[in-house]
């Protein structure tokens, strides 16, 4: 009985979470379209607290905070989703090929991923956007280029596990190329872990976008992002605290929701999150006789 009640409660919670996330996404994508334009552009009351006319107050240039927030949500979500998609595509192609390739190529490819992991990549992204000017495209490419590394590892491990399954041998024996085998046989199998990983990664990427925008390295000023709104709130935190509270609070709430969703999805689909499975350090080393090890690239 109590099991049933608990499960029902959990299902309801999941449903509410889903509604919250989907609702947020829809509002972010469409909100700015339906927003009363005469409110979005007003300039008279500068940095005013919440009122009936401006539910969330106005910002330092007299723009309605709600309108700004909707725009910021759209930017951050757009960049976040785009970069995650880019990462999935890059990661699955790279990881898939490494998994299918011979031991030497695989070793070399995964060693490359290791080097990528050792880079302080956030700093490279900061350099990239601060040198080449701020634009949404650059931002999304830069973040996507960072996020594909763990996905490549996940896909490679999955492919490695499936490599000797009969259906794959059959596909290869029929003369299927690497690309064909990946597309037609492997990706459908790897869909579940990929989806879970993408969900877990989405809040991280969105936070990175907001992080860069907060530092003033994100989108250009007339455009808003969640990060620039928070930055604005920080500047006016004593005279207009609602800007910080609205922007920061909504961002935090949204990220909490996304993290929770990733957790729930992982549990429901029964995918083990990387709690850091025990790695044998020796797997990193060369086999003393110089022959390749089966799983050389997996460790640290």
């Amino acid at each position, binding site marked *: 009985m109590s099991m049933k009640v608990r499960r029902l409660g959990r299902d309801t919670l999941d449903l509410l979470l889903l509604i919250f996330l989907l609702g947020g996404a829809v509002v972010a994508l469409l909100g700015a379209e339906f927003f009363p334009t005469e409110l979005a552009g007003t300039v008279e009351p500068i940095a005013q607290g919440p009122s009936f006319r401006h539910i969330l107050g106005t910002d330092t240039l007299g723009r309605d905070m709600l309108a700004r927030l909707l725009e910021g949500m759209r930017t951050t979500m757009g960049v976040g989703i785009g970069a995650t998609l880019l990462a999935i595509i890059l990661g699955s192609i790279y990881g898939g090929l490494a998994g299918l390739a011979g031991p030497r190529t695989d070793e070399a490819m995964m060693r490359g991923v290791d080097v990528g992991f050792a880079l*302080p990549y956030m*700093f490279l992204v900061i350099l990239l956007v601060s*040198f080449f000017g701020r634009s949404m495209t650059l931002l999304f490419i830069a973040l996507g280029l960072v996020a594909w590394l763990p996905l490549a590892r996940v896909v490679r491990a999955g492919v490695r596990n499936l490599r000797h399954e009969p259906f794959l041998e059959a596909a290869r024996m029929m003369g299927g190329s690497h690309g064909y085998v990946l597309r037609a046989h492997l990706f459908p199998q790897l869909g579940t872990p990929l989806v879970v990983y993408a969900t877990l990664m989405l809040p991280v990427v969105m936070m990175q976008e907001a992080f860069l925008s907060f530092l003033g390295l994100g989108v250009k000023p007339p455009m808003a992002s969640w990060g620039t709104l928070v930055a604005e709130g920080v500047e006016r*935190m004593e005279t207009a605290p609602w800007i910080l509270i609205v922007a*920061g609070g909504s961002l935090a709430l949204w990220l909490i929701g996304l993290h929770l969703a990733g957790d729930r999805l992982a549990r429901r689909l029964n995918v083990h999150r990387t709690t850091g499975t025990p790695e044998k*350090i020796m797997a990193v080393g060369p086999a003393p006789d110089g022959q390749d090890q089966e799983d050389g690239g997996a460790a*640290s």
Partner: protein
Amino acid sequence: MAPPAVTDNTGEERAPLLPFSPLLRRRLLTALPTLFVIVTLTFILTRAAPGGPFGKEREMPEAVRENIEHRYGLDRPVYEQYLRFWGNLLIGSLGPSFQQPERSAFGVLIEGLGPSLIVGLSALLVALILGIGGGTLAVLRPASTPVVSIAALVALAVPVFVLGPMLVRFVAIGLGLLPAALWGSPSHVVLPALTLGIPVGGALARFWRAVLAESIELPECIAARARGLGEWQLVWRHAARKSLPLLLNYIGPMLAGLVTGSVVVEKIFSIPGMGRCFIDSALARDYPVVIGATLIYAFILLVVHTLVDLSHLRLDPRLRKEHTEWTEADRALRRKRRAAARAAKQSRGT
């Protein structure tokens, strides 16, 4: 953990020094390319970027600009600049800072390193206390599990740049308890350390809870419980010890989080640290400082990864045994190769 001394076939006894263990050699083998890639990548980024440190936006006569660029070698071909840069780096110099020409880039960075390290280490302390404490509590007191998980999730999800300003607004300005920004006294460390440590601590709590819950189910832990060991003793003596290697693995990602977060924390609290120095220099195109900062960060990450590997050897006797055998095999292989080479040389000679 000293492996037995190995006698070379030349007869002399060679002390099996740790620095030459294959594990470290292996680490070095990835570390050097990594450093190389970082230097090259940052160099290319700086040179490929449109505009420059002495760009058009600053007003100066053409002759003056040419003079300055000549002074820093910016008028040379790029490959020459690159080679020069490496040459300087090998003797431990990054050249003068572009922004503060009277100081060396390393000098600028070293000055920022102190505050950054203080904030980073105290944040690490905060994260460890929160993470280990919260995780252990959640495992030992099942009633507290939901509270801990929710708190950990919230802590993990709230970005540093939201948490920091909120703390400043409500604790420093609202309650007037602690200084809101700047640097100097120990009380200036508290808020930055909390800001940086709480999110990392949340992630750590989740991780530690999962790991500990798994190792407490191990046969030896069940046996210990059957012998009547108290719960805290059980965790302290058995489960935590079993989970320690996994915790070590987690330090890498944790450190990356701390280092990245430190940039934004230093900006929020106006701390004269390396992270802020990095951002300012990136925006001002102070190339030597930027490359140097990236290099130092990468170096810290590499050193920590290596230390983590070595402490695995200290913690896990199975790995130690494996490593000793592996070292032996590696030595044997090298000896064989040397002997073969010598034989080949002799046969050529005769």
